[in-house]
């Protein structure tokens, strides 16, 4: 006798089954699950019907969950059974099959995942043989069969689906005419110009068009099969196959019969519960969430995730809507659109347009209040995912506006992030350098395993799972491979799989609720795993420490190895030690001690780093403590998420050009802030004159001495993607340099997300905001600087004060047997 709750799902499509997958991951034993599907197939990837029609994939290849999956997970699947009635009082569903038999199932929770139905134009002749919709495997098979016997096809509807159908039929050898009532193709995704370009290139492939045409009637031949399409103006085209692709309607028939509230779909709340009956959920294309019924897969999967979370009784997930983007799955045609690509006529939006009809390239960006709100690209869609990201993030584009049109590769000195043309890359090109993943492997995983989101690609291939610099590229490959229905997940990104909360939400909770321990965070925010994971633990530890200095206790086991050991782990498991030379200056005595240590401990390599420090490489872990002791200098932070180095030139002390004492300034800055932990590594540089020999232009804080004082630049970065620091302020005295630098650092420490560099932090909040906080608000600036000094005051030196710094010295000793 089972005591499990009974979960019944009506519908066996992509959104519904994804919900079950997520649910089983969370709680495999809570429910007895029964699924009714009216099609005779297990769950398949509807998006890939177009490639099947075009002969690029087979039906077998698009099965997402084979029958074994259902039995392995103890899910009772009834295919070819249609649920016709639901008794909400007794909580029983009744289904019938083709033979008219009836079977019933009781439920505690019910999911309606009935999808949508194709809309059929109400014209005479629509019931004729040879007139199809384009929705499921049966339709696709019928189209493939028709293509072997007949020549003339007409597709009614020049939207995404219609064009994919037309392309597939043409590839199967039919003469295809697309009938479209609108002025241009895909008017919901493209503007007039892009639609025109699309039409031209499809015409070049042999597709014919009847634009602005109103269908009056479908006419039959003597056998009762469709033979032609007659238009209102009296003209007609021959048609032995007519495919209607004029839109879909959420399938709410059953829900309406159950007296559930339906508008344009079954109305659901943010937890995907129907507003009428909380035991009943709706997910996918049949559901209307905040007035929107989504037809793309990524938002629907996001809904599924929230629904699973709710069914698993975690109860903390909310679906708040998605932004979507579009791509056409017609090989060789690149188009992309997202957001409000049409703009508005009321003057609230501005457009930047690049049009090169000769090359078949057209790009339009729509901007409102300095934010990118829409994009429509045709011919060159390389930057689609970058624009989409800008759109989603809602960051100000004021500072990159003049370069926006030319794409990400023109913003600064770009590494390989989003730079390569994903489509033209060969399969054996390496995409993810960290994990050695090639493009072919990513494409294969996307196709074979039916992946739709960046997270899934990371999980299955490791691509973009480490440093993340290839994320843009992986997203592009995903868009190309998964096609039109790829769209990124919602704005809000959870820290990791242990929670649905974002970095900001966790930060806020720690500050507002004064959560001092990691356990308190886990409890208050209902973490899904008892001790967190390698991603969230270091972040939470940092947020606690930076929000509540002197009150929150450090948790060394939540620090990454370099911070836990206060030395830098190298590829062979040995460590490197970098004695801190203030401002890059040293003495004969220090050098002698360092040299002696190198001899005494047989340290194999001595190297000068990019930040002007001596690096001792190949130190054994058990030697670390003695090496530090013998050197007698602070020996790290060169590897921590903390202030690393302050690079200097010789300045006025020695240089004949120097105008300011940059070495002293560097030493002072480093001594003031050297124990400062931050969301990510931080580097400063101080140059004594505008020749800028310390290369202050690519540092988190760069100071350049001029005759009348100091210029300050912030948010530079010499990392994977070089970012040039921006001019921030000019000050007169070195005290001011200290105060402004400290204030900026503290702002970043308090507001930056873990592993977010200063440049990304400043991009996120906007340079104007930082200026307002530090330049315009003197009291605020002084308070920030005071808070940093408070946090650093008495902060122990982990190389000499092990107890105070909570360094677990047991890590250095091995147990011997």
């Amino acid at each position, binding site marked *: 006798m089972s005591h499990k709750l009974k979960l019944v799902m009506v519908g066996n499509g992509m959104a519904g089954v994804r919900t079950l997958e997520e649910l089983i991951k969370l709680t495999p034993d809570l429910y007895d699950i029964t699924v009714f599907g009216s099609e005779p197939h297990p769950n398949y990837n509807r998006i890939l019907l177009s490639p099947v029609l075009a002969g690029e994939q087979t039906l077998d290849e698009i099965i997402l969950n084979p029958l074994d999956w259902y039995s392995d997970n103890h899910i009772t699947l009834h295919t070819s059974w249609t649920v016709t009635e639901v008794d909400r009082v007794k909580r029983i569903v009744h289904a019938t099959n083709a033979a008219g038999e009836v079977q019933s199932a009781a439920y505690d929770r019910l999911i309606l995942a009935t999808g949508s139905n194709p809309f059929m134009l109400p014209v005479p002749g629509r019931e004729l043989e040879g007139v199809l919709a384009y929705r499921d495997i049966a339709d696709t098979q019928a189209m493939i069969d028709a293509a072997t016997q007949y020549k003339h096809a007409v597709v009614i509807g020049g939207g995404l689906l219609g064009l994919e159908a037309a392309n597939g039929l043409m590839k199967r050898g039919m003469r295809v005419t697309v009938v479209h009532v609108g002025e241009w193709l895909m008017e919901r995704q493209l503007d007039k110009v892009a639609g025109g370009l699309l039409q031209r290139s499809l015409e070049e492939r042999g597709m014919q068009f009847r634009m602005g045409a109103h269908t009056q009637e479908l006419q039959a031949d003597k056998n009762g099969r469709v033979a032609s399409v007659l238009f209102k103006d009296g003209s007609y085209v021959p048609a032995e196959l007519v495919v209607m692709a004029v839109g879909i309607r959420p399938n709410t028939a059953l829900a309406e019969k159950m007296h559930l509230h339906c508008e344009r779909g079954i109305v659901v709340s943010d937890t995907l519960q129907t507003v009428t009956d909380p035991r009943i959920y709706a997910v996918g294309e049949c559901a209307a969430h905040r007035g929107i019924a989504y037809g793309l897969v990524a938002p629907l999967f996001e809904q599924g995730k929230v629904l699973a979370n709710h069914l698993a009784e975690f109860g903390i997930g909310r679906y708040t809507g998605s932004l979507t983007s579009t791509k056409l799955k017609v090989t060789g045609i690149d188009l992309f659109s997202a957001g409000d690509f049409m703009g508005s006529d009321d003057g609230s939006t501005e457009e930047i347009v690049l049009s090169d009809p000769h090359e078949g390239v057209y790009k339009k960006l729509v901007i409102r209040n300095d934010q990118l709100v829409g994009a429509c690209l045709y011919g060159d869609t390389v930057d689609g995912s970058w624009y989409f990201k800008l759109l989603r993030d809602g960051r100000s584009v004021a500072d990159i506006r003049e370069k926006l049109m030319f794409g990400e590769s023109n913003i600064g000195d770009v590494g390989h992030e989003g730079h390569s043309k994903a489509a033209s890359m060969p399969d054996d090109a390496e995409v993810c350098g960290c994990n050695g993943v090639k493009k072919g492997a990513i494409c294969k995983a996307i196709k074979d395993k039916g992946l739709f989101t960046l997270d899934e690609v990371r999980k299955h291939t490791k691509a973009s799972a480490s440093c993340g610099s290839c994320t843009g590229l992986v997203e592009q490959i995903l868009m190309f491979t998964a096609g039109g229905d790829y769209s990124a997940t919602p704005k809000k990104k959870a820290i990791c799989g242990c929670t649905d909360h974002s970095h900001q939400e966790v930060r806020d909770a720690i500050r507002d609720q004064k959560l001092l321990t990691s356990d308190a965070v886990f409890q208050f925010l209902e973490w899904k795993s*008892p001790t967190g994971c*390698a991603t969230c633990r270091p972040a939470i530890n940092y947020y606690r420490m930076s929000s509540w200095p002197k009150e929150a206790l450090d948790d060394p*086991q939540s620090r990454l190895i370099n911070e836990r050991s206060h030395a830098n782990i190298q590829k062979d498991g040995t460590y490197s030690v970098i004695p801190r030379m203030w401002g890059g200056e040293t003495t004969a005595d220090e050098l002698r001690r360092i040299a002696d240590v190198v001899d005494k401990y047989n340290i194999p390599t001595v190297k000068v780093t990019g930040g002007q420090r001596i690096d001792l490489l190949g130190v054994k872990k058990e030697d670390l403590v003695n090496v530090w002791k013998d050197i007698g200098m602070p020996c790290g932070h060169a590897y921590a998420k903390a202030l690393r180095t302050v690079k200097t030139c010789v300045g006025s002390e020695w240089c004949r050009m120097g105008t300011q004492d940059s070495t002293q300034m560097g030493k002072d800055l480093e001594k003031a802030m050297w124990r400062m932990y931050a969301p990510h590594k931080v580097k400063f540089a101080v140059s004594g004159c505008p020749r800028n020999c310390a290369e202050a232009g690519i540092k988190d804080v760069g100071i350049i001495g001029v005759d009348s004082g100091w210029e300050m630049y912030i948010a530079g970065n010499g990392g994977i993607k070089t970012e040039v620091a921006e001019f921030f302020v000019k000050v007169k005295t070195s005290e001011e340099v200290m105060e402004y630098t400290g204030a900026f650092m503290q702002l970043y420490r308090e507001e930056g997300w873990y592993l977010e560099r200063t440049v990304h932090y400043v991009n996120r909040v906007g340079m104007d905001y930082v200026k307002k906080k530090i330049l315009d608000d003197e009291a605020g600036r002084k308070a920030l600087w005071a808070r940093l000094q408070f946090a650093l005051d008495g902060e122990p030196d982990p190389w000499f004060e092990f107890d105070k710094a909570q360094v677990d010295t047991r890590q250095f000793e091995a*147990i011997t047997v």
Partner: protein
Amino acid sequence: MTEWKVICKVDDIPVLGARRVQRAKGVEVAVFRNAEDKVFALLDQCPHKRGPLSQGLVFGETVVCPLHNWHIGLVDGCAHAPDEGCTTRFAVRVENGNVALDVNELNTLAIEDATVAMVAN
């Protein structure tokens, strides 16, 4: 007959941390302690590029290799998908707060080492 040798107390291992156990011969053994005070022992070598697992971050019943972020199961020594490969697992016994390893395994397992199933990228 298994001969158990006490190597340390459970409390000698940091919670959510590890200790290294040096053997007469061969790569060291890492002993881990998780939040529930369960103790696990693996060869201190990631199946990927031999990263010292004892230096990794521990959560649940998983340790994350400090070199390239591979997730290794503490129970079976095997990498979580999509990575593949396993490191050698050692038997552990905890009695009266003492952690003991099998002498025979300490003397024989992965002594020649070096070639633990290296997984090609």
